[in-house]
Structure formats: structure tokens, C-alpha cells
């Protein structure tokens, strides 16, 4: 994480803001959006009424102090739940503010095609006045006022405000690198930029709104979970209401406070109170990973991805091919071969040429300067398919494809060394490219060029496979090379000699089989595929078209970012699932605390159910309600950070989470309630 705004979980200013908001959120109209907590609010209001009723002289409901404490704890429960949501929102807001700083009003040089005085007159206006389609000018040292696409010029741009990356990037009109983001700074040259979004509708604006919770819509999974929780709430409403005639029959007098305590303890307040905080925290985590998601649904869908398409170059392999080995022919010293190779590459500007020098080592290259004088570089041409150097002393060094060098060798009447011939074959079959070297028509050895697979990439693919995500490599290489690299990098499938429409076809085929497909792309020709994919992540450096088509934008332009996005999506669902399980599992212990307490006076035999040996019916009920309240703030860190995702397979993951949150959810409240009961007994 590069941005400085990595806030602590309980940052002081955020906490203060969140506490304020927890009271504001008590407004029933806001509360109503969360059915579980709304019923708690109704219960709390009822308890307040009971307290007042007792003050007016009612005797049947127990002591005023006891009823007041129940009311007070319920009130705290509400505040805790609100606090969780408010804290998540405050963290989101803090994150958004740091982004928004980059978007403060900046002057913009609007180019008016028909100005007041002359054509293309420049008028300085505020950035907020820019409209879609306007063209503005931006020169060195100025902040770009608005997202847009360069229509004229080329410039280096400092994007550190958005990406945190300090190295400047080049953006130019036309091509795939024409898009600029508002808030970034032009370092050199000047560009004309066409505004591509209406004010307030840029990705950043959308993301800020999402993180702040203002425009947060519930995702389909969240809606389904809300239904489940509403169902649980309903069942406990039924239980608590029917308990009244049951107790009439059992001749047990149950005060109102006990019904409300039972109800509040049983309904899933833990997950109900934390649900929206979990959702906001998920969006916040995406933003912290420098990913702008256009909706919460996109992040959740990412967790379900089955297949993802990945470009080979720059993702799986490091840029271009690199020289990895020198193999001298029989009778040639390795040092001589290396020297010849280095000489032939001195003037070679291609990445391959540079990598040969790199492999040769400084020691050799530094000695070469004496040879350089008067040397003539022979550039690569399509006819000769070789390149090299003619030295002043007449020595000719050539390097090139096997058959081209073989011709030279044969012409000079030299025998092609058998060991080199074998070496050439071996290199080819290993997915490398052999580059044969000849000195004055005599073959002296071969250089192996290899695609370098990024270190650690296999493990990442392995990790993805365990998550159930299949990786597909997209490359322009021929099928043989592609297959070799695919195997070596450990991807599951590849598209060789890929054209842009191939990606589209592949995505469609996968989707037809019912799979969810993700891809990353930057170019305009990626746009249709980005739109077709279920999760399309556009690079921030990419064209506007690509960004419009995808449903996420990666500010870091990091092709491996998808892994993090998938994990964030999974974490989001898991946190909801585990806390739901925990919440429901807690009810077992709460039943054993409250049910004996309700009936112990009228049915002494039920003392047998008081397995925790709680002190008295009052302390039992208070302990259960207190436990129910304090578990919410205790779980806030987990809700905001998310449950750790481990790619160990679905069944193993379920076992693990069932053990921790299911069994743990049954056992912990037994211990917690007992401890609280001891404390409550001590203080009362």
C-alpha cells in the first residue's frame, strides 16, 4: 500500500466522528433500513416505556434499577451497532477525502472554438465548470483539472497523487496511452485534453460515493442474507409472543423486560449490527488496494471468478526475451564466444541486444572499448536476418537465426559444429530462441534467449488454482512457444497467436459454459472484451474507452492485481457468512442462560437447565444482554479487516470456519456469560 492515508483501525478523529454518527443513526427512519436492528430499537423504546411505567407506581415488573439497566444495555447495543457502521463509513470517508484532495478546484484553460475575440481563444475557468466534450489546455507544471483524453500533444505526467508511484509516465494523443486523470500533474510539454465525463460522474466521484455509503446499494448476496436474517428475526418474534400464553399455562409470571431481553438476545444482532460495516469495509479494502470499483456487486462478483485472462508480456514474463546462456562450439573458449557476442551487441539497441551485454558481464564489456574504434555496425534486416559488427581489423561477427547463419557458414566452406547444432535444437524445444554466432563465417557458438517468467508467478497461479480460478495466458507467440511458457508458468490454458477478437470469443465460450470470466486490459481494442467479461479491470493508464467498458479501474496498472481483487471479494462474503454463523451459534448459550431464568420460580425442576449455574434470574438475563451488546464492538476489527481467506479448498475452508465460528460461537458465550455473571453478582 503506497498511499500514506493507511489509517489505523481506531484512529482518534475517526472514532470521535463515528461516535457522533452513532447517535444520529438512531433516527428510526435510518434504522428501518436494517430490519434486525430496527426491532431492537422498538424493544429499547418499549423498555423505556416500562421504566416510566414503574416510576408511576407499577409493582409487577421488578425493580426500577434492574429495568433501567436492561434499557441502558439495549441502548448501548444500538449504539454499538451504529458505531460499527459509522466507523466503517468514517474510514471510507477518510480514504475518499485523501482522493478528493486531488480533485480540489483547479483553474482550467478552456479552449473556446469560437471565442469572444478570436478562434480558439483560451479562457480560464474553474475545473468544476468543465463539461463533457470541452477541450482544455494543460502545460508543464499545471494540474490536470479533469479526467479526459489527450487529443493533441505528448507529455510526461506525475500520477503519484493517484497511484503513489513517483516515476513519471508518458501520455500521448492517439493509441492506448491517451487517457489522463484529473488531479495528476503535467511535468513537461503541453497537451490538449478533451473532457470525457460530466462533472461529478467520474470514476473517482462514483467510488467516493460508494465508499462513503451514500449511494451504496445492497448487493444480491447482501439482499439474500438480509432475508435470512429477517427470517430468523421473525421466528424469534413468534417464539417470544407465543411464550406469553405458554407461561400463562405454566403459571409463570414473566416481566416484560425478560421477554424483550430474550428477544434481543436471540435475534441475530451481532451480524445485523455489523452487516453494513462489512459491506463498506469491503469497498474500502478495494480502494486501499488502489482499485476503483464501479459497484459493490463488481467486488463480490470478483470473488466468484472461474476464469481469468492474462496477457503474457509484462504479466507472466518480464517484458522481452533475455539472453540466458552462452554455449560455445567445440574447440572455442567460452570467454572468446562471450567477447564476440558482446562486441556484436554493442550497438544493438534492442532489449535482446542489451540483455546479451548484461549477461556478458561488466568485466568483459569494459574491456571492449579498444575494439570499438572504427567498428561498423551491421543492422538487422529482413533479408539477411542477421546483425553484427565489422571491426577495424577486418573481423566480421554475425549473429542471427540458425538457418541464416548456416548459410553464411556453408558459403565460407566451414563445417557447422555438431554440438552447436544439437544445442540449437535443445534450446528450441525448451521454448527458447537460439541465436547462432559466427566469426568470419565460422560458427563459434550459440546464445540462448528465453522468456523470463516473473519470479513467484507460479505460486500466485497455484494460489489462484486453489481458489478455483483458472488462468488463461493470452500471447502473440506461436503455439509451441506459448505451450512451453504456459507449462513453465503453470497457467491452465493459453491463447496463442491471439488477435483481440480471440479474447472475446474465448470469454463468450467460457461464459456459455456458465463460468464467470475476469480480464484486465488497457487498449481500446480490449474494450469489447472488457465489457463482455463479468469482471473487467481497466488499467488507469489505458484509454477512456477501456475504462468505460470495464467495471473496475486499477490505479496501479498492475496486471497481477486481480488476485487481490478476488481475495477481497471472497473475504467480503466470508466475513458475512462466518459472523452469521457465529451470531446464530451464540443463541444456544443465551437460551441456557435465559430460559431457566424465566421459569425457575414457577418450575424449580428447570434449574437443571441452568448449566452455567448463573447466580439469579436477574443476573442471568443481565449477563446475556451484556454479552450480546459487547460482542458487537469486540467484533468490529474482524468486520472491518475481514476474515482471512486461505486458498485451501472449499471443504477444508468450511471445516475451518465451522470450527472457529460455529463451534467457537457455541462455546465462547457460555464462558463469556458466566464471567459477566460473576462480575454482575460482585457489583450488585
Amino acid at each position, binding site marked *: 500500500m503506497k498511499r500514506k492515508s493507511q489509517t489505523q483501525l481506531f484512529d482518534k478523529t475517526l472514532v470521535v466522528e463515528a461516535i457522533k454518527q452513532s447517535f444520529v443513526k438512531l433516527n428510526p427512519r435510518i434504522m428501518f433500513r436494517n430490519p434486525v436492528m430496527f426491532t431492537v430499537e422498538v424493544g429499547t423504546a418499549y423498555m423505556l416505556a416500562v421504566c416510566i411505567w414503574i416510576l408511576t407506581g407499577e409493582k409487577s415488573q421488578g425493580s426500577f434499577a434492574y429495568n433501567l439497566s436492561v434499557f441502558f444495555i439495549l441502548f448501548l447495543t444500538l449504539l454499538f451497532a451504529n458505531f460499527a457502521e459509522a466507523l466503517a463509513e468514517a474510514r471510507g470517508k477518510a480514504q475518499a477525502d485523501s482522493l478528493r484532495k486531488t480533485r480540489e478546484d483547479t483553474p482550467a484553460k478552456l479552449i473556446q472554438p469560437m471565442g469572444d475575440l478570436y478562434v480558439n481563444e483560451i479562457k480560464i475557468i474553474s475545473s468544476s465548470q468543465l463539461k463533457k466534450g470541452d477541450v482544455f489546455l494543460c502545460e508543464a507544471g499545471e494540474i490536470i483539472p479533469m479526467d479526459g483524453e489527450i487529443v493533441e500533444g505528448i507529455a510526461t505526467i506525475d500520477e503519484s497523487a493517484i497511484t503513489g508511484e513517483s516515476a513519471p509516465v508518458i501520455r500521448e494523443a492517439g493509441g492506448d496511452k491517451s487517457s489522463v486523470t484529473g488531479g495528476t500533474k503535467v511535468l513537461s510539454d503541453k497537451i490538449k485534453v478533451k473532457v470525457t465525463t460530466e462533472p461529478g460522474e467520474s470514476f473517482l466521484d462514483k467510488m467516493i460515493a460508494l465508499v462513503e455509503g451514500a449511494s451504496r446499494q445492497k448487493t*444480491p*448476496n447482501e*439482499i*439474500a*442474507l438480509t*432475508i*435470512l436474517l*429477517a*427470517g430468523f428475526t*421473525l*421466528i*424469534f418474534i*413468534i*417464539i417470544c*409472543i*407465543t411464550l406469553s*400464553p*405458554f407461561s*400463562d399455562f*405454566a*403459571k409463570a409470571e414473566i416481566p416484560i423486560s425478560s421477554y424483550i431481553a430474550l428477544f434481543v438476545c*436471540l435475534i441475530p444482532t451481532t451480524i445485523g449490527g455489523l452487516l453494513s460495516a462489512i459491506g463498506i469495509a469491503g469497498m474500502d479494502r478495494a480502494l486501499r488496494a488502489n482499485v476503483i470499483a464501479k459497484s459493490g456487486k463488481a467486488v*463480490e462478483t470478483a*470473488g466468484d471468478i*472461474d476464469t481469468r485472462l492474462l496477457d503474457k508480456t509484462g504479466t507472466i514474463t518480464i517484458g522481452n526475451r533475455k539472453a540466458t546462456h552462452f554455449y560455445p562450439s567445440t574447440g572455442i573458449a567460452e570467454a572468446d564466444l562471450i567477447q564476440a557476442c558482446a562486441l556484436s551487441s554493442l550497438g544493438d539497441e534492442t532489449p535482446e541486444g542489451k540483455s546479451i551485454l548484461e549477461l556478458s558481464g561488466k568485466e568483459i564489456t569494459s574491456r571492449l572499448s579498444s575494439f570499438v574504434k572504427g567498428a561498423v555496425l551491421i543492422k538487422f534486416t529482413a533479408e539477411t536476418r542477421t546483425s553484427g559488427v565489422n571491426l577495424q581489423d577486418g573481423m566480421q561477427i554475425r549473429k542471427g537465426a540458425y538457418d541464416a547463419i548456416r548459410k553464411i557458414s556453408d558459403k565460407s566452406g566451414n563445417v557447422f559444429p555438431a554440438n552447436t547444432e544439437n544445442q540449437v535444437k535443445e534450446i528450441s524445444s525448451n521454448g527458447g530462441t537460439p541465436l547462432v554466432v559466427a566469426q568470419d563465417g565460422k560458427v563459434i557458438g550459440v546464445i540462448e534467449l528465453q522468456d523470463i517468467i516473473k519470479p513467484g508467478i507460479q505460486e500466485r497461479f497455484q494460489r489462484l*488454482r*486453489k*481458489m*478455483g*480460478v483458472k488462468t488463461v495466458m493470452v500471447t502473440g507467440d506461436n503455439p509451441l512457444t506459448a505451450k512451453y511458457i504456459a507449462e513453465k508458468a503453470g497457467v491452465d490454458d493459453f491463447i496463442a497467436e491471439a488477435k483481440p477478437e480471440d479474447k472475446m470469443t474465448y470469454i463468450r465460450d467460457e461464459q456459455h459454459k*456458465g463460468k464467470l470470466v475476469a480480464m484486465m486490459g488497457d487498449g481500446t481494442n480490449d474494450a469489447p472484451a472488457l465489457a463482455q467479461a463479468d469482471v473487467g479491470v481497466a488499467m488507469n493508464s489505458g484509454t477512456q474507452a477501456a475504462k468505460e467498458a470495464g467495471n473496475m479501474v486499477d490505479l496501479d496498472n498492475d496486471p497481477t492485481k486481480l488476485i487481490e481483487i478476488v481475495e477481497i471479494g*471472497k*473475504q467480503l*462474503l*466470508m466475513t*458475512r*457468512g462466518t459472523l452469521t*454463523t457465529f451470531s*446464530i*451459534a451464540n*443463541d*444456544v448459550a443465551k437460551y441456557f442462560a435465559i*430460559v*431457566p431464568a*424465566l*421459569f425457575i420460580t414457577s*418450575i424449580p*425442576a*428447570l434449574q437443571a*437447565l441452568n448449566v452455567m449455574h448463573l447466580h439469579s434470574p436477574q443476573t442471568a438475563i443481565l449477563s446475556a444482554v451484556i454479552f450480546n451488546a459487547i460482542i458487537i464492538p469486540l467484533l468490529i476489527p474482524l468486520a472491518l479487516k475481514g476474515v482471512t*481467506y486461505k486458498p485451501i479448498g*472449499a*471443504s477444508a*475452508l*468450511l*471445516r475451518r*470456519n*465451522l470450527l472457529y*465460528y*460455529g463451534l467457537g460461537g457455541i462455546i465462547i458465550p457460555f464462558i463469556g456469560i458466566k464471567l459477566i455473571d460473576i462480575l454482575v453478582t460482585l457489583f450488585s
Partner: protein
Amino acid sequence: MNTEILGVIFIFAASVALAIPLGKYISKVYGGEHTWLDRFFNPVEKIFFRIAGIDPLKQMGWKQNLIALLTINLIWFILSMLVLTNMSWLPLNPDGNPSMSPDLAFNTSVSFVSNTNLQHYSGESGLSYLGQLILMLWQFISAGTGMAIGAVVFIAMKEKTSEQLGNFYNLLVKSCVRILLPISIIVALVLLFRGTPMTFDGKDTVVTLQGDTMQVSTGPVAAMVAIKQLGTNGGGYFGANSSVPFENPDYLTNAVENISIILIPIAMIFALGYFLKRKKLAWMIFGVMTAGFILLVIPTIYYEMNGNPAIAHMGISQPLGNMEGKEVRFGPAASALWEINTTNTSNGSVNSMHDSSMPVSGMNAMLGMMVNAFYGGVGVGFLNFYIFIIIAVFISGLMVGRTPEFLGKKIEAREMKIAMIIFLLHPFLILTGTALASYLAAHDTAMGWWYAGNASAWLNNPGYHGFSEMLYEYTSSSANNGSGFEGLGDGNPFWNITCGVIMLLARFLPIIGPVAIAGLLAKKKYIPESAGTLKADTATFGMMVFAVILVLVGLSFFPALALGPLAEHFSLY
């Protein structure tokens, strides 16, 4: 080992051993595959289809299948009402039994059409032979209905993406003709050879050893007992059901009848495995159901065999265990097994009086009905289990970080809504029913037309046991079980009508819900499995389903059980 316990183990093992091949056969029947019985059944079925003008090959969607089911059930209900309220003058009434009152006829018709067989009458005096025969017909077709609609869900689970979910009429006829009828004939023959009556003559006159003359009710008993056991019906020919020697003469018939209770419910699970070609899934479901079943049956046998401590306190030895309300020829272990069998499967026939069981046994019987999915009723037991699967899939899907899916279909808000409503319905009906009755009893309300006398008078036992009686009655109605704690005075308009309404709702809504979910899922796009998919046919997922059932049912009924059987238990011990 104790022979009684060996007997119990034998009965259960034989049930499972017979259910596996039967499941294979059922799967073939529903899959339309060829069996060697085709040459007997094809002509019979052809006659049915020709008369009814039904094309058995015409495929229907889930809604059409449900409409067919509901319409045909309504017709049966009306027919049943007509016969029961007029049987005094209709033929086949040699004993001259009277017609039923409208509220009792309503209760009885609903009860038999809904496969509940709650009986607020005694067969020997309350029905003519025509009445018995018409109820026997419902025993066939209500069981067939459950199996047929279960098969519709099987088909929905099998199809990758389809709206063509078989033909309800075809599946119904096949269930009755090819599955229920042949097995019933075998069971009836065994009963017949062991002495169960099968006649259309009126009461027999017997001279006892003392020289008294006695009138003994008989009738077409063997046929009815066979189908009442096999079709999870439970409505006996006589009031005292399978505890009467005429219905259940000896230990052998008891074993056969006991096996008959759980045979088809278990076979349906294996049929699902064969039908979907997912045997592991069937074993997972069977494993979960059996684990629940065994957890209920062991304590029941234990408490029944150990007798009543209150009697022990009086210094009376109980070498046979708790024998109150039990038949000596069966003993406490076999009776306890039957009690759990019959309540888990929504059968409801009895060979002992559940009212006289120990409190824990009574509670376990109620728990079986509260879950109603440990094997469950023929066809519908799996539908109830399906709801628990959907809820378990949803929670566990979230727990592994993936949008929940079951057999390649996504579970979304709509399915969850239906699943939650259906899950809520059962506790809602049981708890509100019991709440109403206990309110009236607690306040000793005068009932007017609804009940002759004040409400508390319908309880023969006050206190915890009285509460259990009311709870049991509504649990039995809502689980479409039909057994009862017979101390309750339930033959009156109040109980007839409230139980009737509950039976109706509890029969048809839990059929509509799962079929709707299965139909909606069948329409969805099929998602192939990947390493991230949570597989449904694993022991881990089985554990999850089991935990969901345990926690959901436990949480729903704990307070009610605490006030009834648990309070009684802890007061006794």
C-alpha cells in the same frame, strides 16, 4: 446382547438393506427405464391414461405440475367430504355406523388427503366399510402425490437448464401402480397369513371362555394396514391402530410393519442418488438423516427399557421397563423404535401409546416431527430436507467466500425468501396453535359451539404433561404425522377445525415451496464445478446440514419443549 435390542438392530438393518434395491427400482420407474414388471403394469396404466385422456409423455413446467397436484387434491377432498357425511345410507355398511358430523368429516378428509391420518374418530364405530375403503384410496393416492412431486424435484435437480419437469399425472399413476401397489400386496399377504382379518362381512360374534357373547369388529383390515404403513399414512383401521392384535398380530408382523414405515422414505433417498447418478449425495443425505434418527432412537429405547422412576420409588420392580401403554408381545425396545420411526417419517401409526412414554421419549417423538426431515414422509420428507439443504448451502457458501450454489445452480434472494417462509411455517403453525390452546386452557375459557364445556376440560392431565399433549397434537398436525398423545379430548369442533387448517397449510405450502425453488433453479444457468465450489456430496457439507437442522429446530422449539417434556423429565428424575 439383549435380544430386544438385537431385534431393534435387525429391524433397522433390514429396512436399509431392502431400501437400497428398492431405491434403484424407484429411480428406474421415474426415469422411464425398462423393468421386468413392465409387462404387468403397462396395460394397467394404459387403461388409466385412456380413461382420463392424459398424455403421460407431455412435459409440464413446475407451475403446471403444482396446479395439477392442487386441483386433483381438491377433487379428492370434495369426494371424501361427500362420502363421509353420507355413509350411513350408502352401501357397504353392515354394522350400521352413522355418518360423520361436518367438522369431523372436514378434519378426516383433510387428514387423509394430506397424508396425515390424524384420527379424531375410532374406525370400528365411526366409519362404514365404504368409508374405510375411500380412506384407503386416499392412503394410496396421497402417498403417490408426495412421491410424484418428489420425483418432479428429482427431475428438476437433474436437468442442467430446463423448464420441462416431467408429467405429474404420469408420475402419480406410476408411484401408485408400480411402487405402492406391489409392495402393499406383499405386506398385506404377510399380515393375512399371520391372522389379520380381510372380509366384507359385518361384526363377528364370539363366545368367550367365560361363556359371554361378544361382538368383534372386523373388515378389510389387512389391505388397509399394509398401505397405511408403506405410504407414511398411519391411519389405522381400528382406533388403537397397530397395537390391536387384529392389525398387528405378533412380533413378525410388528417387524414387517416397522420396516414398512421407513422402507419407502429411505428408498426415496437412494432413488435420488441413482436418478441423479450422484450416489455420494444420496449417502450424504442418508448419513445426516440416520445420524439424527439414531440420536433420537437411542435415548428413547434407553428410557423406555429402564422404566419409570416414580413407580420405582413406590418399591415396584419393573423388569420389563416402562410397560404402561405398551403391548407385551412387542416389549419396550421395539415399541420405542416404532415410536421414533413413525414420528420421523410422518407416518403416525402406533403400536404403543405415546402418551404413556417417558417424557424424553415423548420429546424425541415430537422432535422427529419438528424436524420432519429425518427420512420424513414418502417424497415430501426429501422436500423438507431440501429446504434445510438450501439454507445450509447459503450459509456455507458465504463461509467459503463464494456466491452460494447447489448442484451448479446459484441460490439467490428469491430462493432464500421461499426457503425461509417454508422453514418458518412449521414452527409458526405449531407454536401459534399451541399458544392458542394453552391460552384458552389457562384461562379456562367457555368454548360455546367449539367445545362442550370449558377449555381446560379437554386436558386429562394438568400441568406439564397437559401442555405436552397440546404441543404434540399441533406438532403432529403440522408434520402431517397423525399420531397423538391420546389423553387429549380432541374429537370436537375446536380441535377438528384448528388441526384441519394446520394440516392443510402444512401439507401444501411445503410442497409448493421446494417445487418452486427447484423449478426456479432448474431454469437457471448451470455453473460447472471448480476447486472453489463447495461440493454438496461431502461429509463436511453433511455436517453443515446436520448442524443447521439441529440449531434451527432446537432454537425454534426449545422454550416450548422446556415447558412440556423437559419440565416433566426434570421433575421426575
